[in-house]
């Protein structure tokens, strides 16, 4: 049998919507099989993963809490990926945003005013944007591949954070723990009574319609798509690929940085060596699962957040390894990309072409 792809005249709009759901179905199916192989009741495990977290209010709050940064980062990444710029260093931009945003509460702990928090958020965005600007600069100036540079910078950012909280920014009254001082109320995002849910989540969800409008209704959003689809056509249109490269990377850096400072000024409340369970990488999955569309990203962000919570829940109730969550996430991305093929192609299985008895040249000569 041979696998055959036949290009569709135009992308199938039906498949465009159906593909992520097919991918989700395949992921559920495959992870169910894996649960069974590992000796767990697949139905119970799948229930813990995908349903249980939705049955209690506190865990719905947690769902929104984790979805916030994923959505915010993925919205920025989607702009990059639309423009065919492969920023995979959002984890670093997230971290740098957290570091920059923490400058006021850590270096000027006494300065508390209504302006403190807004300044922290702005600094977070600036930090992320500047850090995202580095791969842009290296790409524009030296043609260095942004995939590799942005990822290397992510490793570097994590080490910088580690250095700061173990060294100069360590809490002087913190018994030598690798932590910064705790942020005061003025330096933290207000939370919903009785939960860790903070107002930053509103920002993340409010960003969804804004980004939808930007990408689908403005010329600037259109420019990112044109340069991604056909770079020569973008040049012909008069869009500068340099400007777009800087814009995409710095913009996505800013959003990741904002997510970073909101994480430390929100549920964490201080700087630590580890401030993210891999949000920057999981957001890549969110962006693709959401088809690079802001509304899709919102749904995908909630789903991936669910997989984090489900992973924790299944570990507690069933003793299932928490590592399984990352496997499920990785699988999901694989299937999404595979199902994407259905949008652009008809996929067919075809028997091998018959190997008919072809006359050799000498046979042919005999025949004549």
């Amino acid at each position, binding site marked *: 049998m041979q696998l*055959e792809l036949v290009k569709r005249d135009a992308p199938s709009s039906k498949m465009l919507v159906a593909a992520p759901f097919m991918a989700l179905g395949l992921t559920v199916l495959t992870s169910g099989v894996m649960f069974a192989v590992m000796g767990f009741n697949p139905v119970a495990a799948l229930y813990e993963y995908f349903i249980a977290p939705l049955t209690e209010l506190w865990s719905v709050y947690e769902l929104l809490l984790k979805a916030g940064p994923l959505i915010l980062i993925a919205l920025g990444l989607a702009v990059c990926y639309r423009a065919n710029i492969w920023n995979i260093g959002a984890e670093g931009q997230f971290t740098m945003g957290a570091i920059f945003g923490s400058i006021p509460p850590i270096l000027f702990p006494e300065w508390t005013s209504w302006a403190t928090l807004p300044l922290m958020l702005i600094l977070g965005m600036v930090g992320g944007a500047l850090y995202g600007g580095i791969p842009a600069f290296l790409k524009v100036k030296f043609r260095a591949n942004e995939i590799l540079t942005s990822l290397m910078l992510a490793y570097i950012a994590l080490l*910088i954070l580690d250095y700061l909280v173990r060294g100069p920014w360590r809490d002087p009254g913190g018994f030598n723990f690798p932590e910064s001082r705790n942020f005061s109320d003025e330096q933290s995002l207000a939370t919903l009574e009785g939960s860790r849910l903070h107002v930053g989540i509103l920002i993340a969800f409010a960003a969804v319609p804004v980004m939808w409008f930007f990408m689908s209704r403005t010329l600037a959003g259109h420019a990112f798509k044109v340069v991604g689809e056909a770079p020569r056509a973008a040049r012909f249109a008069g869009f500068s690929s340099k400007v777009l490269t800087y814009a995409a990377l710095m913009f996505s850096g800013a959003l990741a940085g904002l997510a970073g400072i909101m994480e430390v000024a929100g549920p964490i409340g201080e700087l630590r060596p580890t401030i993210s369970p891999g949000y920057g990488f999981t957001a*890549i999955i969110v962006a693709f699962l959401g088809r690079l569309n802001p509304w899709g990203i919102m749904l995908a962000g909630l789903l991936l957040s669910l997989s984090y919570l489900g992973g924790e829940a299944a570990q507690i109730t069933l003793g299932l390894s928490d590592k399984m969550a990352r496997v499920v996430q990785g699988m999901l991305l694989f299937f999404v990309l595979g199902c994407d093929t259905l949008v652009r192609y008809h996929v067919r299985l075809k028997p091998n072409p018959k190997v008919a008895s072809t006359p050799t040249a000498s046979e042919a000569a005999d025949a004549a």
Partner: protein
Amino acid sequence: MLLEFFSFLRELASFFVYIFSPTILPGVLVTVVGSATPIALAATGELVVERSGVLNLGVEGMMIIGAVVAFGVSLGTGNPYLGALAGGFAGIGTALLFGFFTVYLASNQVATGLALTLLGLGLAGLIGESFVGTPGVRLEAITIPVLSSIPFIGPALFDRDILVYLSFAIVAGVSYTMFKTRVGLILRATGENAEAAHALGRNVRLIRMGAVAFGGLCAGLGGAYLSLVLTAQWTEGMSAGRGWIALAIVVFATWLPWRALAGAYLFGGVIILQLHAQAYGLSIPSQAMNMLPYIATIVALVLLSRNQAVMRRNTPAALGRAFVPDR
């Protein structure tokens, strides 16, 4: 400030004197080879993949899967050779998964490579959960008589395990095959212009699958080296970005096998140098030392820009572009 800087320079100088002293240097060289070998293996494999026109960003994922499988199998069987073999096959397995998606389903190569890395890291963590803290079975050295007693390079190069020897054999074999044989000619042609290769009747997708599988084998062996030789234990995320560095080295080497080997040794040197500097007690934060390989990667990529002419001539023109034969 200036005074501090001068004292630091003096410290640095004495560190280098220490490193290059006849008593220390042989040991350093041994560790450099150890740190370079997994990167060299992975980079050489990826080089073949990219020469066929496929960009597999999942090297990190294939490596870590290779590491965990090699560790588990050698632990289970007690035979590290079986472990290394299993690591290689695990690499092939994950690579074929990637290949099926990118080559046969024409999925986006960059994104699918990322997916492979994420899945590989997760899966390896899951598989390896029970191995954490267990001492592994080490792949022992095979001493080559006479050669191993050459001062300095003898112990570093000729008193090593089979994977070190294999890494040299693979680089030599790839270099010869790529530029001196018909197979290599066809491979390069496929990466240069898949449509034309197809028009001449070459089975582009099969060639690419073969190259991808070879890349998986090499990455898996590189991973096996980590868990069977370099540390002989399993720790989560032990590939620590080596797969990504290998990817950078392929670019740095402008897709030439011997240059990739040299690049791997350069990086191996950087990694070892910073480890020794930390042990020596240089007054630099350890985090800054740990950054060195990543910074070096960025610097290497940037330096390449001065070499655009060479880059353009050797870059596989069809790199990263899916090929779908029309029917």
